[in-house]
């Protein structure tokens, strides 16, 4: 994938991964950020013009102090779309936190997108199914919650970092503090910023994609989304946890393609 840099009207800079040709598709990453490998985006690039901007706090550009609450995040999302200079309305895709923000964006400016795909989105809360507290987990505890297959998940998350090396550890902790520190503004201590009362505004055709073995935001949340967004379809992904886009990228890509290309 290619990289380009954009600057929003507000002056926030951001790295954007870009690939493919076709209808514009903007992907918003989750609380973990963009990874070294983005197999879902690679797959989607075969049919779409994919843009994957990095949230402030996730790249080298800074600016995360400018985002303080949900409205800041949602408007920044549209600022990024504006800065991309698209010729057509985009499809929006968001994973986890990115899905929460994309749904907010689609409620605020409900005529500004073609279709919306939410991959295990955050943003709702069910008392009977409390979402595990990601912010109190130790690095080695994350894989079991995020992946259907924790063994390969662990390797994926570490990304080759050696935690016994003090410099590497400091670098990792600085990055993690910036990433999850930023995410915490809309996810801590409970990832619910009252999106549910705004979802009535969402009018774009919507697809929910959920890993059958999601232990962070369990699939029961899909039912709640469908109750609040009656037009939303649901694609379930077998052998996938919360990180379905990384565990089963082909299946997720196929579901998205069917949805975006349906007449």
């Amino acid at each position, binding site marked *: 994938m290619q990289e380009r840099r954009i600057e929003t009207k507000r002056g926030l800079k951001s790295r954007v991964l870009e690939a493919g040709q076709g209808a514009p598709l903007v992907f918003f990453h989750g609380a973990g950020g963009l990874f070294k490998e983005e197999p879902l985006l690679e797959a989607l690039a075969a049919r779409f013009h994919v843009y994957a901007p990095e949230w402030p706090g996730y790249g080298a550009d800074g600016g995360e102090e400018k985002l303080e609450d949900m409205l800041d995040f949602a408007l920044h999302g549209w600022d990024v779309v504006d800065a991309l200079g698209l010729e057509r309305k985009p499809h929006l895709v968001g994973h986890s936190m990115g899905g929460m923000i994309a749904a907010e964006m689609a409620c605020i400016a409900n005529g500004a997108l073609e279709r919306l795909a939410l991959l295990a989105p955050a943003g709702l809360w069910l008392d009977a199914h409390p979402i595990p507290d990601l*912010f109190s987990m*130790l690095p080695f*505890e994350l894989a079991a919650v995020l992946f259907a297959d924790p063994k390969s998940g662990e390797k994926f998350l570490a990304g080759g970092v050696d935690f016994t090396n003090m410099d590497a550890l400091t670098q990792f902790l600085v990055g*993690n*503090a910036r990433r999850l*520190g*930023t995410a*915490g503004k809309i996810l801590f*201590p409970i990832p619910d910023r009252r999106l549910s009362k705004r979802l009535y505004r969402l009018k774009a055709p919507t697809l929910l994609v959920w890993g059958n073995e999601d232990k962070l935001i369990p699939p029961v949340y899909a039912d709640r989304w469908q109750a609040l967004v009656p037009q939303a379809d649901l694609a379930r992904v077998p052998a996938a946890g919360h990180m379905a886009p990384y565990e089963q990228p082909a299946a997720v890509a196929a579901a998205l393609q069917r949805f975006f290309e349906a007449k």
Partner: protein
Amino acid sequence: MPWPHLPDDFRQTHRSVWVDIDSSLYDPAEGNRVYHEYMDQLEYADSLGFDGIGVNEHHQNAYGLMPSPNIIAAGLARRTSRAAIAVIGNSIALYNPPIRVAEEFAMLDVISGGRLVAGFPVGTPMDTNFCYGQIPALTRDKYYEAHELIMRAWQEPKPFAFNGKYNQLRYVNCWPRPIQKPHPPIYIPGGGSIETWDFCVENDYNYSYLSYGGYKAGKALLDGYWERVAALGKDESPYRAAFAQVVCVADTDADAEKLYAEHVLYFYNRCLHVYLGFADPPGYRTIKTIQSGKLNQFRAENQRLFTSLTWKELVDGGFVIAGSPATVRERMEHMIKDLRLGCVFLLFMIGNMPDDKVRHSTKLFADKVMPQLRDLWPEWKNDDRFWVKPLETRVRPELPKNGR
């Protein structure tokens, strides 16, 4: 102020002493006894001539039984008349709105006749983020705003509007007002965030390093603080710094171990059993502080630190200053000079120590150690910027008489 009945296998059978501590371990009827015992001990310290008696704030914590230290301080203010009442302190970002702290501290200062030391901690992640739900990356920002609001509320002569990011108040008008002018001495308890150092130095507030790590571990941290004091061009008054230290005094060194070891070990090996995931939520610490390399708790060898400490390790490592009056005096003097301390928070009640032992240790210290430690900074003896200024004539409440 610890709960004295954590089971022997607490570390093995419970995840954390703090945040999600098992509520079945608390017995309110026993709590009645415990609160009064601890408050009696603080009042006893006042009667022995200590300069101050202190309380602090923790939430959902089995070694800190004071979610509201102001309630304890109010009791102490009524039953003591001499010692400063050091509330170290209120986590001001947690009060909604923080004008509540301005009001309650003003009440304490007035009731005590101007004896309040006002502590403003940023607050631990356990208390502020996990128990009280504050967003980690915004906690410090909210703290600074609360500080500004409280200080203005105490000092501005007329009602004013406060248009903050976290607090919007159309009429700020603190009533009553503190006795001490322009405000009670401010102590900022901290755990090593370098921003807190500059904040203290710039405002001439006391920086209180509160840890149970002892003076050897505290040395590196306070050296960093004093470097900032010098770099910002301030004087080196030792009263800019305070330090908490566990102290156990007995007639002989051997007696100290015999009397106190099991209670101190109860504290270090049970009470400090905090789930590491609660200690550092991403965003709580600033990038500057992480980059400064104070990441010791993340190294595997340090995760085992408090699991099985022995008395010898605690004493040799400086976690605890224990022994005969002569031993304690010598080590205290070394600590005070080495760390350049104007104030030491002495922790006599530790772990599950019974009342008679606490009083024994406290009294020996007051009689045989304290007098020799009073004049270690003769060149700064007139520096009254960092201590209370009580009313000369103040009410000394009498104990109630039978009205029948």
